[in-house]
């Protein structure tokens, strides 16, 4: 029993049960009669995701001729009747805009949830179909769909929904302007493997091989230092060491050039968080009073002020990155209580992915301020992706900065580079190449990949 039953419990009537004269009848619910197919994820799908087909629409090429409606209606009802088509072309004459309403074949279809007779099914091949045997044409699928893609035929009252012509869509074949593209998305994701490799190598180097570590290390003439540590150092000693300042500058310049690459690709604690977060199931929610991303600037101010007051680098003693480098690893300086910091903060992953990085990390705060001035940005061209029906970029984003609400409304979400850790999961995952890295001054959104006809 789902909760919609309990909502009506207040007015529940058991006419058949309460009358003693009648026999008690067994009520078979729809769940028992036609159980929903369970989502099974095989082992190979973790590496090779299923490539479900869909039709992408490019509004800039569409002329609003309505050929797609005609060929679609011919398949549906064997005559040219655009009202009976499963696709609808909308025209805005004032601004010269055209838009085709098409079923997107969502990953988690809302129409499937709303259908009272459970006539809508999502097949193994990813195509969402209406089973005409069970459909009563009540139109609740149209009510539940954000794009209202299941279309009601005004003449006959029926519901028409795209089934991709079982893999060979006629509208794509007949579109004179190639505004419709049939695609299965890209298959291979190479950034994922590259990132894990880089993270593992930098973890090895920073924690195990190099002594002294990320906070400050020196190889020959090259010195590198943590910018947050440097700030605390300046605050506590009230002197500026030029060598230290220039070495901290290296990381800041890298951040300006390439965003917070350090957080996503190098940070050894981030590597631990990614590993732990991949395994731990998300059991509890994050408390809402800690949901402000401004907290980390407060932590930064507290760290600098604290070091000025105390006379030593206050935050560095409890910094998870520093304590990971100092107390774990081959150098074997197991320093008692410091061991506990990393597991404690890594356990925040049970609430949210990269919770420490999102809300608390002062190193990320400094880098975020620099990334805000940075040269590059990540754009997601919601114009030409599957929008609400896919949302894989929002699913994989470890810091959760891709706005699902905007995706649901079909608007390109703006990604704050202050928060983005440049892990490039969204770029890697997007099957349609809508998530791209662009320079700051570039305008426009990415186009559809593979402009080929079926």
């Amino acid at each position, binding site marked *: 029993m789902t909760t919609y039953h309990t909502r009506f419990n207040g007015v529940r009537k058991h006419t058949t049960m309460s009358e003693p004269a009648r026999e008690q009848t067994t009520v078979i619910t729809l769940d028992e009669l036609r159980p929903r197919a369970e989502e099974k994820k095989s082992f190979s799908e973790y590496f090779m995701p299923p490539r479900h087909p869909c039709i992408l629409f490019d509004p800039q090429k569409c002329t609003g001729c309505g050929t797609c409606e005609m060929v679609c209606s011919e398949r549906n009802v064997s005559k040219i009747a655009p009202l009976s088509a499963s696709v609808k072309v909308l025209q805005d004459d004032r601004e010269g805009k055209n838009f085709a309403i098409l079923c997107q074949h969502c990953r988690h279809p809302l129409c499937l949830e709303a259908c009272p007779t459970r006539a809508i099914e999502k097949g193994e091949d990813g195509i969402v179909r209406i089973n005409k045997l069970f459909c009563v044409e*009540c139109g609740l699928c149209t*009510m539940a769909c954000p794009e*209202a893609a299941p279309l009601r035929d005004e003449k006959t009252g029926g519901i028409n929904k795209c089934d991709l012509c079982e893999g060979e869509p006629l509208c794509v074949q007949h579109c004179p302007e190639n505004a419709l593209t049939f695609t299965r998305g890209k298959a291979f994701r190479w950034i994922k493997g590259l990132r894990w490799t880089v993270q593992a190598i930098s973890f090895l180097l920073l924690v195990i091989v190099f002594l002294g570590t990320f906070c400050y290390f020196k190889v020959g003439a090259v010195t590198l230092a943590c910018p947050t540590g440097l700030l605390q150092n300046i605050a506590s000693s009230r002197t500026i060491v030029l060598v230290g300042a220039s070495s901290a500058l290296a990381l800041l310049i890298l951040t300006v050039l390439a965003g917070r690459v350090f957080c996503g690709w190098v940070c050894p604690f981030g590597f631990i968080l990614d590993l732990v977060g991949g395994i731990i199931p998300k059991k509890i929610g994050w408390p809402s009073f800690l949901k402000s991303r401004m907290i980390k600037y407060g932590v930064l101010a507290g760290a600098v002020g604290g070091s000025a007051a105390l006379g030593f680098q206050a935050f560095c003693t409890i910094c998870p990155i520093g304590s990971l480098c100092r107390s774990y690893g081959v150098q074997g300086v197991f320093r008692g209580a410091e061991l506990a910091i990393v597991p404690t903060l890594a356990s925040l992953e049970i609430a949210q992915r990269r919770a420490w990085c999102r809300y608390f990390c002062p190193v990320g705060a400094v880098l975020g301020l620099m990334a805000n001035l940075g040269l590059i940005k990540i754009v997601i061209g919601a114009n030409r992706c599957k929008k609400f029906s896919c949302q894989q970029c929002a699913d994989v984003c470890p810091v959760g900065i891709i706005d699902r609400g905007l995706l649901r409304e*079909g608007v390109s979400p703006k990604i704050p580079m202050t928060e983005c850790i440049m892990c490039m999961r969204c770029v890697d995952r997007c099957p349609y190449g809508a998530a791209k890295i662009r320079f700051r001054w570039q305008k426009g959104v990415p186009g559809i990949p593979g402009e080929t006809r079926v």
Partner: protein
Amino acid sequence: MKEDALLEIKQHAGIYGCVECGRCVAVCPMADMYVNFSIAMSPRGIIKKALAGEDLIHDRNIWYCTECNAGTDVCPQGVSCRDLIRGLREMATAGDAMAEAKYCACCRKPFIAVPVEEFVFARLHNEPSNVFKILELCPSCRRELYLVRNA
């Protein structure tokens, strides 16, 4: 005047041919939707009341129907319970009766009945809350919104 309109609706729906076989209730999706499904809100019950001349415009039971056409498809007499309920609802929204219609936030036209919408909301309870903002609009306004935003 009002009686004339009511009579016309009833005749147009053809309810005087009803033989009370109950096939429309057998196929009615409301039985799966509402736990408190009863004879009063079933198409057969509403047609019975209409035949008896009872006041249906002020009755909440006409607002549970999804306006599908399943009952008419199986009816041996071709009674269209959808047309009957649609007509009754139109009279209720036009007059001062208790109209449980949901009005589109954009075009201000009624497009769905409140109990049906409650059912859809309850089915989508797992979805993030911003989906309900879209459900405030009628389907054609939703499509227009996509045209304006995305084209």
